């Protein structure tokens, strides 16, 4: 039997598996307080995913707000969208704007390297697309355990071919990234993916549902039981005595579908018929409906029976939580629905009207003719818990810093020095990375002015004027372990230098904050220090933070990874013909050393 709102009123004391869904007792109590009754199974599903660390940023929100002091001015003009939107948007001059963002897919890539990395690329590309932009490039900062560790052998080939398989198939040039091997990532590789897109100022799209009577359309892949481990618990509680059908714990990406989704969405944009749009990230329909509805000026009504399913045995809770890839949600005026569906048909993209914008400010969801969700969407999307977790300067950090490299024995002879040099240049971190980067298409779209092995990736934006952008990502986790404040600033300044060295003016950053468990005060301290380092550094450099991603709980057997705040720097260059490639260009040129 479906757990309806009516049923929730009638059975206030029914047991619910909130703890299994990752909610704390006080969070569950808070949900009841918000609703004035116990949640239905569907509501519980929605709150539990949306209030998870991953979606709600409950441990980091408080600290990320510090980025706010940086304002929205870049050296080239104001941000057109900043933190809080799906991705930041930077005015780069002329009529052009660029949107870029970095995101992590660490845990899924550990479980299933190929699909984890592939869907990581897919997810960030949809974020960029949803801003109204054409995605034009990707980058992939990667961190692995030691090159010869068995687990590295297991995860590395899959991760690299996942990124290559998905990114190449989308036709997005891979213009840079990192590969770093360090024992700290054994058993917890980091897969960060950055996507950059381009748009005209007027094309900017925001994720909100406005306009009474406007239709809510889901399009892209059908909904399957992907990534809904948690919701299966609910299904078993409320439905089937035999327990739910097996649900996959991993998502499988379909890059061809995503390519169609991109072209189809761009054509929809061009037709001028999209009033609001959102990609499906984690938390699927729960996320898309509650975020669209709470950002808009009305309420929303959704009929779950209209959602096209790949697996007909899905329960309503599971439909709401499914993380099936390659899906989008758009809000469209009723008179434009036919045009919308026509464009989707042209691209062979499934599309269905699943709901509409209604009066008031509630989000209603029906299933089999009964109401299963009746919530204020803001409470789902934005009023999640905010934690001020304890933080403390680690007791070990002074000892670690006292153990200085300068105390190590020095090479005593030329031969020893030569030996050291060989070891250094032969180490996996210094060695040529083309065994990885050659698996990525860096030429597609024909605008890659710089890619590997250059300091930064550079893309031409405007073929007439030569206006272009440069991007670099950087982080050294060992520096960050020694001093997370300075380590973050080092990452920031390295990416700044890499962009500047290629001839572009650095303008703004995105960041991916990969850390251990936020429940460990040492980690929380590292996290806060890194943010403060970035804030102070960015203020000095005049480069605001446009958005980013936090990945906590990166640990193996209870041991946290070294703090790894990866910084992605965006630069602008007026004419890409003026780029400065690395390497010596002409015999006889003078070689200068700048700085101390």
């Amino acid at each position, binding site marked *: 039997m479906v757990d309806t709102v009516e049923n929730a009123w009638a059975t206030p004391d029914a047991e619910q598996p909130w703890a299994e869904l990752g909610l704390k007792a006080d969070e569950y109590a808070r949900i009841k307080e918000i609703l004035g009754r116990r949640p239905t199974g569907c509501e519980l599903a929605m709150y539990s995913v949306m209030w998870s660390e991953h979606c709600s940023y409950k441990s980091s929100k408080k600290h990320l707000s510090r980025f706010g002091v940086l304002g929205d001015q870049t050296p080239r003009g104001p941000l057109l969208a900043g933190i809080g939107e799906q991705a930041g948007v930077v005015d780069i001059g002329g009529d052009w704007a660029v949107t870029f963002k970095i995101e992590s897919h660490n845990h899924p890539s550990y479980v299933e390297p190929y699909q984890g990395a592939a869907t990581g690329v897919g997810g960030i590309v949809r974020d960029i697309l949803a801003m109204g932009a054409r995605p034009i490039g990707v980058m992939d900062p990667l961190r692995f355990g030691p090159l010869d560790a068995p687990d590295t052998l297991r995860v590395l080939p899959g991760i690299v*071919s996942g990124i*290559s*398989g998905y990114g*190449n*198939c*989308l*036709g997005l040039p891979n213009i840079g990234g990192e590969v770093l091997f360090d024992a700290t990532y054994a058993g917890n590789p980091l897969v960060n993916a950055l996507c950059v897109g381009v748009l005209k100022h007027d094309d900017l799209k925001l994720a909100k549902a406005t306009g009474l009577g406007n239709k809510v359309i889901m399009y892209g892949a059908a909904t399957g039981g992907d990534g809904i481990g948690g919701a299966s618990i609910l299904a078993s509680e409320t439905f089937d005595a035999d327990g739910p059908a097996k649900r996959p714990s991993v998502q499988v990406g*379909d*890059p*061809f*579908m995503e*390519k*169609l989704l991109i072209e189809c969405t761009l054509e929809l944009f061009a037709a001028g018929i999209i009033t609001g749009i959102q990609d499906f990230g984690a938390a699927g329909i729960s996320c898309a409906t509650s975020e669209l509805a709470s950002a808009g000026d009305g309420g929303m009504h959704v009929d779950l029976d209209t959602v096209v399913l790949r697996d007909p045995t899905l329960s309503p809770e599971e439909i709401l939580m499914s993380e099936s890839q390659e899906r989008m949600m758009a809000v469209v005026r009723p008179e434009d629905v036919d045009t919308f569906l026509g464009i989707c048909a042209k*691209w*062979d993209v499934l599309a269905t009207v699943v709901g509409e914008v209604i009066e008031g400010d509630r989000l209603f969801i029906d299933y089999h003719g009964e109401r299963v969700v009746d919530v204020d969407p803001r409470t789902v999307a934005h009023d999640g818990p905010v934690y001020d977790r304890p933080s403390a300067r680690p007791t070990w950090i002074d000892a670690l810093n006292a153990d200085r490299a300068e105390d190590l024995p020095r090479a005593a002879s030329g031969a020893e020095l030569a030996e050291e040099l060989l070891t250094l240049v032969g180490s996996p971190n210094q060695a040529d990375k083309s065994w990885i*980067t*050659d*698996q*990525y*298409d*860096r*030429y*597609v*779209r*024909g*605008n*890659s*002015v710089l890619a590997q092995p250059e300091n930064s990736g550079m893309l*031409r934006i405007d073929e007439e004027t030569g206006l272009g952008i440069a991007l670099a990502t950087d982080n050294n986790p060992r520096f960050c372990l020694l001093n997370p404040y300075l380590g973050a600033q080092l990452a920031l300044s390295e990416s700044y230098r890499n962009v500047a060295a290629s001839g572009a003016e650095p303008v703004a950053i995105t960041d991916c904050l990969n850390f251990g468990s936020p429940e460990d005060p040492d980690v929380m301290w590292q996290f806060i220090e890194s943010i403060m380092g970035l804030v102070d550094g960015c203020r000095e450099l005049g480069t605001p933070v446009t958005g980013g991603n936090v990945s906590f709980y990166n640990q193996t057997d209870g041991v946290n990874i070294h703090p790894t705040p990866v910084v992605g720097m965006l630069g602008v260059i007026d004419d*890409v*013909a003026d780029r400065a490639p690395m390497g010596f260009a002409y015999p006889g040129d003078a070689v200068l050393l700048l700085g101390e």
Partner: protein
Amino acid sequence: MTRVGVVTFPGSLDDQDARRAVTLAGMEAVPLWHAAHDLEGVDAVILPGGFSYGDYLRCGAIARFSPIMTEIVAAANSGLPVLGICNGFQVLCESHLLPGALIRNDRRTFVCRDQTLKVESRDTVWTCAMEEGQEIEIVLKNGEGRYIADDETLARLEGENQVVFRYLGVNPNGSSNDIAGVTNARGNVVGLMPHPEHNVEALTGPSLDGRLFFDSLTQFLSARV
């Protein structure tokens, strides 16, 4: 003006690049949609790179059956110049306009590199402006670019001057006889794995050798008139 059609299949990726290359060569690029039965009177056709239909079954296997291919096969058989680049080459083999097949690289990964090629035959529409034995540098990027054919076919291709390009230095994918590109008996249909359209601008490509393909087309078309 010479009009060159560039086909877009679902999953085509280098179609915009091919159109840009056509334009830079001073010709008119005509976008052709896979679902159309109309070649719009073009003077030549390029089947661009990409992953048509995701290339999930076999590269080019599904694209072969698109409506536009029916027209292209017929036109090619009566002499229309057709250039298949990478995925386009795969589509041409699947359509039996060119012999042989392309399978997974021997290294079993995608490979993207600046590749040196040797021009083996200038006896085609797309290479008549090149020199026999000329070395050109063209971007290569593929996962399934290993050219194979049975011994008899290979012997025939070699004997009848239908091998157009050979990999020089490195054989990046294990292709039989280092074959990078072949032509049909008539010389109007050429397929190759490397991407000439990425070698038309100094800013974005390792060489300008891709222009030679368009010079050849021009030379051929003007000689014909």
